[in-house]
């Protein structure tokens, strides 16, 4: 890995140089909540001043840029008995992601395993993923982040460059030659020994700030044993089955498909919509039979998919510990508490 450092003011230059020729997506302030605190979101930015690199956490991940909530899979033209199908992967061009936290980068790495590197890669995802240039940035741990438990607090790959704020300078890890070439446009230096020390200090100071934890030891096995456990019923009782957790999760990718005919009968569409395993009709089949009619069985399934099934298939869980699901859940259902309760700890 190649490391450099650069003066803080250079970042604006980098941004502007990149923005002149590319589209940039980054964290911005989308509004203020009732306490007057900023609410952050990923959005296209063209003005460096609108960028909020010091953001805490966004409510939603940058999902719509790699797994849109709704996406046309194919369009058909229909004429008499004949029809033609055309496929569009819905990418208009490359995008620069300016300021993703490690958890969100790791989420992409996990998704890559199932959507890119499995036997049937998913072209819609692949097309977007391969057109992402990612600038990672260090984060400020929030009380709900348990990414350390999920080994997602640092990203080792899956980005092009990663910048860490050292106070007056940025420390940058460079992973791709594209990033290396981009950095030639601003003034950077070889890091000195004191930069390295400062970097390590910064990182360890951050690491001390993580509070939330999930015990993942033998979790897959324990989940298997506790399949019939009553704690699920408790969580099922308070779950609203609203699908919010899946929508805000950077790794939830399950979807449903709808086929529609245009009202003029001259065309048709096949549309994909992100679904959630917590929604009532997720496991409904012909004749109306529902494999998971109860709230608790659906909620349980979400945990099984993430912390057991995915582990079995890919040797890691499908959760990066960003804590978004717990933060957005009105009922307050969150991963640390659910897992703790399944492990025999106390539930709320």
């Amino acid at each position: 890995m190649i490391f450099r450092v650069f003066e803080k003011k250079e970042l604006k230059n980098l941004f502007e140089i990149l923005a002149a020729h590319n589209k940039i997506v980054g964290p911005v302030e989308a509004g203020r909540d009732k306490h007057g605190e900023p609410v952050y979101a990923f959005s296209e930015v063209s003005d460096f001043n609108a960028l909020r690199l010091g953001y805490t956490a966004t409510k939603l991940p940058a999902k719509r840029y790699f797994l849109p909530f709704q996406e046309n899979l194919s369009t058909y033209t229909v004429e008499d008995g004949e029809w033609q199908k055309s496929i569009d992967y819905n990418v208009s061009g490359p995008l620069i992601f300016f300021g993703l936290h490690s958890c969100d980068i790791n989420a992409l790495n996990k998704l890559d395993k199932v959507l890119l590197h499995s036997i049937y890669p998913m072209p819609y995802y692949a097309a977007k993923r391969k057109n992402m240039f990612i600038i990672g940035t260090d984060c400020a741990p929030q009380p709900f982040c348990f990414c350390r438990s999920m080994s997602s607090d640092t990203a080792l790959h899956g980005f092009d460059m990663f910048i860490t704020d050292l106070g007056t300078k940025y420390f940058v890890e460079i992973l791709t030659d594209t990033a290396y070439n981009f950095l030639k446009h601003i003034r950077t230096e070889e890091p000195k020994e004191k930069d390295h020390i400062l970097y390590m200090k910064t990182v360890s100071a951050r690491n001390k700030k993580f509070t939330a934890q999930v015990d993942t030891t033998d979790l897959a096995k324990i989940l298997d044993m506790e399949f019939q456990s009553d704690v699920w019923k408790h969580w099922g009782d308070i779950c609203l089955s609203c699908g919010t957790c899946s929508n805000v999760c950077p790794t939830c990718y399950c979807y449903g498909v709808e086929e529609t005919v245009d009202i003029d009968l001259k065309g048709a569409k096949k549309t994909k919509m992100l679904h959630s395993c917590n929604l009532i009709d997720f496991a409904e089949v012909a004749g109306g039979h529902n494999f998971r009619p109860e709230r608790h069985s659906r909620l349980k399934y979400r945990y099984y998919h993430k912390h057991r099934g995915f582990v079995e298939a890919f040797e890691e869980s499908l959760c990066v510990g960003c804590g978004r699901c717990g933060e957005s859940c009105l009922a307050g259902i969150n991963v640390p508490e659910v897992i703790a309760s399944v492990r025999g700890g106390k539930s709320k």
Partner: protein
Amino acid sequence: MRPELKFVDVISEQQRTQRRKQDLASFEHTHRAVITSVFPLTDMETLYRIQIIDPNERKRFSFIPGQFLMLELPGIGEAPFSISSSPSIHGEVELCIRKAGNLTNFLSKAGRGTIVGVRGPFGTGFPMEDMHGQNILLIAGGLGLVPLRSPIAYVQENRSHFKEVNIMYGTKTPEHLLFTYQYDVWSKDDINLNIIVEKADPSWKGSVGMITEILQDILSGRDNEFYHNTYAIVCGPPVMFKFVCNMLNRFHIPMQKMFVSLERRMHCGMGKCCRCNVGSTYTCLKGPVFDYWTVMNLKEAI
């Protein structure tokens, strides 16, 4: 040099034609196919023969018994169907389809010449070659005969590779029996055919009862040699294969030699939409054909 990103086209022309499995385009590659014959079997089920239009694609299209394909009509729907014909015919398949919803109802109005889209084949199949030299029990309930027709065709075409072959088929009433015109042909190939209905009508001369009753008759009084060298393929509604598999288990037929086919909702057939997950196993990738040991280890499978 301008700091500008190059657009990455995920499917170069080369990839498109060469690496089929790794080919990103295959995800949405739909063969255009034409319905060449429509043959009503009962009020609800119709047998369709479907041929891939492009001769090259047709040649390349092959499958193993037990696999399914995704059939689509633009704007109406897309759904998985088991291939119900001999694996030795390429690019032309038979599907037996029951009217159950949007796609299947619309299809029931379609005639010869209708153009449909076909993706696949997908999923696991029955390991027919492993079964060579063994006894075979082919057990079907109701619509379960549809996926079973493909292994039956395989057995017929390779009869000398198998020892004793038994087909057991049960339905609710005689009217529900599928493929009645084929029973004679099956028997001719030294295959024992046992049919049972739950409720007879006046014209019914055969056995009446549950399928487990014939199974009991066939399995009783055999030696261990038989039990240990027998494969079973069980297709039908979940309740039925639960009873059947329990009985096979009691007779010590190895669980790894018992195969079932599961049905779930599917949108992609490629392990992406998660709708077919049982526990957290994709029915479309690891199944629909599972050995019974695996099924036992899945949560909420049956």
